[in-house]
């Protein structure tokens, strides 16, 4: 139960990260254009955010890792997407006025809009490994399978967003969808964690 939950949630996280990244590109275009450095800025910020996320997610997993804390990562990342949805325009407008260099303009805007939610989403992968690992011997296999699931989720998120979601939905609707996926994933993790606690200590809750 726990294993299946963690794996499917890792899939959702992988999916959401790429969905967010692709939509990020469309979000910046009206202000910073579609020059090559706009994508450069976005990818830089996402890679930086994920590296920070991996580092801090791994660190966090050292302190009594459990499913409840895991669910909070999802819920927290969902909440941090909200300001990006609501304030992207004024933020980009402000950055646009700040610098005439479109490279650093798009880099600054990307950092403000995408760094925090993506870094939090990045915490999910190492934390999932911690929850799933049962022994030292199988840890490599666990991590490998987890990477498979979450990166596969990223692939699906990329193709679905770029091929279909942009045709079916508005940009903000896709962002709300990402929010909903992360929020629901977090709530499912929370529910499973309560259910498991109940199984182990019946009557306590």
């Amino acid at each position, binding site marked *: 139960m726990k294993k299946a939950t963690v794996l499917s949630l890792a899939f959702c996280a992988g999916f959401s990260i790429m969905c967010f990244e692709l939509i990020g590109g*469309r979000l910046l*275009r*009206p*202000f*910073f*254009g*579609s*020059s*090559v450095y706009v994508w450069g800025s976005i990818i830089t910020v996402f890679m930086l955010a994920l590296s920070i996320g991996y580092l801090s997610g791994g660190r966090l997993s050292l302190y009594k890792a459990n499913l409840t804390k895991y669910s909070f990562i999802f819920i927290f990342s969902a909440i941090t997407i909200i300001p990006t949805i609501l304030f992207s325009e004024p933020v980009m407008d402000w950055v*646009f*006025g700040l610098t*005439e260099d*479109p490279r650093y303009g798009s880099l600054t805007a990307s950092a403000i809009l995408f760094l925090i939610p993506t870094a939090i989403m990045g915490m999910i992968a190492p934390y999932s490994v911690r929850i799933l690992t049962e022994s030292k011997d199988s840890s490599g296999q666990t991590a490998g399978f987890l990477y498979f699931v979450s990166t596969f989720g990223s692939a699906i998120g990329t193709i679905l967003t770029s091929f279909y979601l*942009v*045709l079916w*939905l*508005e*940009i*903000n609707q896709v962002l709300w969808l990402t929010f909903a996926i992360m929020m629901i994933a977090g709530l499912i993790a929370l529910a499973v964690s309560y259910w498991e606690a109940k199984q182990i200590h019946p009557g306590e809750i």
Partner: protein
Amino acid sequence: MKIFKGIQTRFLGPLGSILMLLLVSNHLYAKTIHKERSIYRNIVITEKKDRRCMRFETRKRTKSNQACLDLKNKDRLVFEYTRSIMVGLAYNPTPKRVLIIGLGGGSLPNVFAKILPKTEVVSVEIDPAVQKLAKKYFDYKESDTIKTVIQDGRVYIKRAIKKGQSFDWIILDAFNGDYIPEHLLTTEFLAETKQLLTKDGILSANTFSSSKLYDYESVTYQSVFNSLRILSSPTKGNRIIFACNCENIDSQFHLDSELENRLKPFAIDLPMLVDRISDKINWDTSVKPLTDQFSPANLLNQ
């Protein structure tokens, strides 16, 4: 064919085959005289007879030239659509400032330089290699009045509004048959363009939309400018959309024999083109305009 091949191998040998091939290819295909890899695409300069063209390499089989120059008569505008764009002069024969989004070979700025030497023409081009090749192979000359800015068109327009600039004529020529920059086809972008126009300023957009995009594109322009005038090419798939920052676009197109004569060296048949301008709405007006939030232009164009 078989006999031909037989003759080739028997009488001419391998060298002869190569020579034959060279002769045939020279006659039928345009010769590549330069190839350039830019950060956005591969650009090829070709020459066939007296025509030199700039082409973006695509995987599509149909080759779409971005710009062509008639080497025997360099003034002559080779493309029908460039001639059609210049019909904007019948609306305002003396624009002081002109903004062109998409440089290509620079044939439009060259016309302005010749007939309106005092007019300031700013061309905005995203790809620095296009500017370089326009200067080297297409006689594009920059000066105090003919300027090029390497930037994304949308970014340039937003910045120009903030700086309080304005233009009498904005020409959107950033669309080709293969790819549409989607952020240049939304109500927000067109509203910005309108804001950058002087009062009674005119917009000409060269568009290549087909299938569903035709409806979406038309409605998007309509939602910002209300009244449109369309100059469709009878043979090619493109059309020029004219719109203005004014009350009534119709009253503004004037035929003038002096202008007509001035445009003749460029192969622009002004009366014929003005006559072809239509106000007919031949698109589905029930579709929603494209916005920054919803702009899958390339997916709609299939």
